[in-house]
């Protein structure tokens, strides 16, 4: 079961590559313009899947702080609660990012020492601010924010593509690329 699970863990990456290839194939080989755009959509979601997989950690939860978490290390917080909470969120983001640094460096062979250094730094940093928030508990929120943008960009591209498709249909009466090229070649 563990073997299967480990395959399943990296399965995301395999699937993203497969989906990308499917999308790329459609982009290049399909004749129908709408099909091309569908391929493009698949291609882009595959990349987003890849990014989300980067941000995902085993057993991590959504990067939202609950009130008790935010207040854990700040019993003496008075009127500055809101500010502190804000600070914590920011801090959590920072932690998450640093976590990735650490992971990244762990991957790099022969640089463990350096990575350890970094870890201890993170820990000490942790200790004197808010011991309750651990970056490894959360998925990396930065990636998510970026992907929101990417999704919107993808849909915008799709929209423009479809608009051009409609324009082409208006001009040539077809949405098949080969037919349009034929019409251009035979002289408008």
């Amino acid at each position, binding site marked *: 079961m563990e073997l299967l699970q480990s395959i399943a863990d990296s399965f995301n990456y395999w699937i993203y590559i497969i989906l990308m290839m499917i999308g*790329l194939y459609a*982009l290049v080989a399909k004749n129908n*313009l709408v099909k*091309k755009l569908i391929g*493009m959509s698949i*291609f*882009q979601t595959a*990349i987003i899947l*890849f*990014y989300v997989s*980067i941000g995902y950690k085993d057993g991590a939860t959504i990067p939202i702080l609950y009130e008790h978490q935010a207040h854990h290390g700040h019993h003496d917080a008075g009127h500055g609660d809101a500010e502190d909470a804000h600070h914590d969120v*920011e801090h959590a*983001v*920072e932690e998450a*990012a*640093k*976590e*990735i*640094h650490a*992971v*990244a*460096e762990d*991957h*790099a062979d*022969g*640089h463990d020492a*350096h990575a350890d250094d970094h870890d201890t730094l993170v820990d000490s940093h942790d200790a004197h601010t808010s011991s309750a928030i651990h970056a490894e508990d959360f998925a990396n929120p*930065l*990636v998510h924010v*970026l992907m929101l*943008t*990417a999704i919107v*960009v993808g849909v*915008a*591209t799709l929209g*423009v*593509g479809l*608009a*051009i*498709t409609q*324009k*082409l249909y208006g*001009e*040539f009466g077809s949405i098949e*690329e080969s037919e*349009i*090229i034929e019409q*251009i070649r035979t002289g*408008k």
Partner: protein
Amino acid sequence: MTEQAPIFILLFPFLTAVIVALVGLRHKSLSWPLTLVSLGASVCASLSTLAQVVEHGPIRYKLGGWSPPFGIEFHIDGLSALVAVTVSVVALLTAIYSKDNVDAETPDKSSQYYSLFLLLVSGLLGIVITGDAFNLYVMLEVAALTSYALIAMGNKRASLAAFKYLIMGTIGASFYLLGVGYLYIKTGSLNMLDIREILETAGLFNSPTILVAFILITVGVWIKMAFFPLHSWLPNCYAFAPTTSSNIMAPLVTKVMIYVMVRMVLTVFGPNYAFEILDWENIVVWLAVIAILAGSIGALAQKDLRKMLTFLIIAEVGYMVGGLWLADETGITGTIFHIISDAFMTLCVFLFAGIVFAKTGARDIYALEGMFKKMPLTMVGFLVGAFSLIGIPPTAGFFSKWYLVQGGINSGNWEYVVALLISSLINAVLFFRLIEIAYFGKKPAEGHDHHHGDDHAKVSEASFTMLLPLLSTAAILIVIGLYNKELVSVIQDFLSQFNLATSIR
């Protein structure tokens, strides 16, 4: 005020794009002046930024006060300041030029046009000044989406070309995004300077992930800049798009992509990785040689004026890719210089092609017939652009080629030097063919017509708004040529941080 200049470069065109879109619903006539004002302001801001960079060194402008690894940062050094100035100036000139053309070609869509135009410019400026790899992707897409729309405003064939561009552009941008993703896996940062620092301190250069990231980013950017085997989308796009659309895109889009390539290779991965660890130079330089020759020969085969010029762009892209991979300081200086000079010379000849089209309604090169008599001033502008593309001193094109050839000799890449010279010669053939047509006419009369004298030639120049940008561009080309030393010192200041192989000096 001046320390806020970096953000104003971007903010003016972007906000005005929104305003133009709204105001344009009711008062179409306001679009043009608004565009001009905002671009003028943007030019001022970018010039002031350049001055600051030259004086105080690179500027790091934190957007919204978030510190670098998390917030978006504008990082402006000599390179980006120079390219930003180029972009904004080209945009301003094209905007002036747009007045008559847009009214003539797309009369009912003028406010949409200006709005898209401004968005395109802000996208390009954003690419240039951002210091964040993901932000760059977003700006890339902003610029790309607007350019698809701008191209599709053209005739029937333009729509298909725009669609193909959309497909290729998306593939390119997605490759770039993927590459950035891989970088992020390894480094956990999206800030360009930060990535470089982590790559170096953590010694990640041997990791295959970084290699994949590098390949994906390079190939993605190559697609977007129409580097030779990946160029197929470009000629039809720029040849059939509305005049002003191609006038803004032809000089800028590919050039900004070259900027991205330079930025990625030098700032993000570092020349040490790109040139020494990977050791690809020879392959890429050969690819560039093929691109240069293919572009030049492709241009020879064209009868359509603008299409011919688009093939020249492909050759010029080859110049710059090759120049970068010479891995020599002089060569890279040449590449960066060529970004600027090529932007202006491409602009110059495209503006001219636009005037010819507006005056004669014909696209092929024979439309030039008798132009020397009909519009001498326009031809003067064209001549400067053509001479610059050929590389005749003292135009800007000569000096950028000078540095490129020098870099080629320095690094011993003789094939590149030869390709550059051959392409210069082909350019000479191309442009003197045009000049000949303009001078003699299509069918030269046997014997000479004595009374066809100079005293009563019908002069019908293009309108002022079209002529002014053309002549200003020509003037800029010469000024850049004459002041190239100052420009190069800015570029070399920028390059000095990288410890590149230098020439004997």
